[in-house]
């Protein structure tokens, strides 16, 4: 038994001529909540599918829960809970029928009581006979999570689980994820939301199938080394002018503020100081956000 729930090296996958995942190394400690970030089409879903045996890797090797990713995909499937990006439970089956199907497919001996318990926990006991297709986005997500937890997996793979879900449901969802991690479950979750990224123990940022940064949120910020200044009261038209100044890589409006970032701190501060002096505006250094860091990574990561 290794200390890692996921330990893969050199994972690669191509569809036709397109290299979707390119020599990816990934290590996820047991019991960790590991955030998986990257722009659309960066290979997140493909990587997750390779980890749970839905796709076979073209190259690379490694283990998932100590099992060989390429050879033992069937055993891996029975110990992994995979929540797909789209809702992929059967909309023409009821909530209860979906859960019972999942329980029986995993060969659970006490399928009925497991399903009943899951329905109680979900608060769906009253609506068990409702078709899954009639549920709202938030409830669908809860059903999907409950269904892939029935067989008590040791690793949870969540592919953009909170897309299209309201903030309250998202918060509850993350509370549950943390509760599960405390019980020892390892969670790999892909997301586009920065607030969710900040809730992860560690992050990996991939673009164009390659790993660009890895570590705790703070480590990633340090690694990118972005320096950010906030300029107060700048007019919206100033964005264009500021972004042409030397050392400026990003200008992002936040309400009445502009966040100006760049990796070259000295040049950036000279530019910002000069501009604010000319227009008699106030400015101050602020912490760079993860979002700023990722956008900087994405720009740098272009092949």
């Amino acid at each position, binding site marked *: 038994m290794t200390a890692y729930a996921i330990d893969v090296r050199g994972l690669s996958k191509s569809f036709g001529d397109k290299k979707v995942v390119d020599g990816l190394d990934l290590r996820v400690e047991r019991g960790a909540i590991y955030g998986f970030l990257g722009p659309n089409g960066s290979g997140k879903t493909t990587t997750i*599918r390779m980890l*749970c*045996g*839905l*796709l*076979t890797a073209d190259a690379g090797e490694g283990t998932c829960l100590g099992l060989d990713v390429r050879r033992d*995909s*069937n*055993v891996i*499937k*029975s110990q*992994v809970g*995979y929540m*797909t990006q*789209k*809702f*992929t*439970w*059967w*909309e*023409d*089956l009821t909530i209860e*029928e979906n859960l019972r*199907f*999942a329980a*029986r*497919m*995993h*060969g659970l001996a006490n399928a009925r009581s497991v399903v009943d318990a899951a329905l109680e926990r979900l608060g769906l006991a009253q609506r068990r006979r409702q*078709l899954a297709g009639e549920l709202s986005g938030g409830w669908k997500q809860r059903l999907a999570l409950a269904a892939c937890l029935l067989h008590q997996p040791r690793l949870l793979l969540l592919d953009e689980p909170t897309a299209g879900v309201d903030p309250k449901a998202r918060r509850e969802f993350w509370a549950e994820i943390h509760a599960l991690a405390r019980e020892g479950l390892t969670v790999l979750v892909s997301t586009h939301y920065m607030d969710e990224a900040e809730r992860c123990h560690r992050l990996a940022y991939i673009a164009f199938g390659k790993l660009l940064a890895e570590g705790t949120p703070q480590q990633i910020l340090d690694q990118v080394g972005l320096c950010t200044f906030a300029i107060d009261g700048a007019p919206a038209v100033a964005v264009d002018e500021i972004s042409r100044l030397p050392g400026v890589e990003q200008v992002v409006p936040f309400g009445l503020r502009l966040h100006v970032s760049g990796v070259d701190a000295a040049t950036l501060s000279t530019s910002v100081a000069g501009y604010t002096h000319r227009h008699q505006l106030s400015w101050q250094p602020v912490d760079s956000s993860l979002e700023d860091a990722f956008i900087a990574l994405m720009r740098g990561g272009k092949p």
Partner: protein
Amino acid sequence: MNPFSWRRLLAVLAKEFIQMRRDRLTFAMMVGIPIMQLCLFGYAINTDPKHLPTAIVAAESSEFTRRLISAMTLSDYFDIVATPASIDHGRELIARGDVQFLLRIPPDFARDLVRGERPALLVEIDATDPVASGNAMAALGPLVEQSLASEIKGPLAHLNPKPGSIDLRIQRRYNPEGLTAYNIVPGLMGVILTMTLIMMTGLAIARERERGTFENLLAMPVRPLEIMLGKLVPYILVAYVQVGVILVAAHLLFAVPILGSLWLLLGCTLAFIVANLSVGLLFSTLAKNQMQAMQMTFFFFLPSMLLSGFMFPFRGMPGWAQAIGELLPLTHFLRIVRGILLKVNGPADVWPNLWPLLAFTLVVVAFGAKRFRKTLD
């Protein structure tokens, strides 16, 4: 994980049955299609058409002429709808499609007949659809002779074209009355099974793929065989319901006799059902969505209809078309069904058409299983 699990198969089966029950339209189609097609085709398709519109240009009016016309009317094949004054006018009627036959009785027909000069009767046919007029044409010759023979008697008896010289007897075996329904209705059983089974199984997996639920299914620790059997077995039952409906309707509505062994028929039907399911399964592994599965179904269905001997006489087709026809399960099943129902075929008679079904299934399943992967690559 054990190689094959009955529990998982049962789980898939239960899911499929629930989904089938909820999909009212499809369910109604599976029961409705056989009845609808049977009534439509059984009553509508008739390769022995009668009451064909006929025009007669009679240049004279004699007892012979009247006799001939009444005999034609009585035969049911001909409805005399026009008596144009000239042959040119009659030809216009044919050209416009108003009549199918144009009979011309020449002037002095009776006189020439009595004199033994063998007068000519001209029959013009709209032969654009040869099947439509074939039987009527065949009936016309004897009809003319017989109707005249009854008039040529007494002193004219020597004119009779020696009826004893050739004694032509046409015996229609298995279907003495030449009822098209005897041919069409058993054939419809094969056609209906081909269409519904291939389409339903093709759609069943393509639907999962289209909705994304296939990914979920594959993420579970399930064997391909369990998915395949779970998907197919419900349709075997559906198919037998259809067979039951068709046989009962064929017997009650069309009085098609069931002369051979019903059990042998049901057994051979299983081979045919499985052959079609394997095609559906193969298509579903190739199709990316339901639309494609549908298109492939028709790609297979049309040659089955046209080259199997259901629509057109198998022996009438050129060699290459017959060769293609021999590859289709429907061709063999049609022979089996007609053989058992109408000719009292036994197992030994049926075997030459049964083994091609089994061989077909084996080949298609081998391809399908190779294509049916557990992954999404």
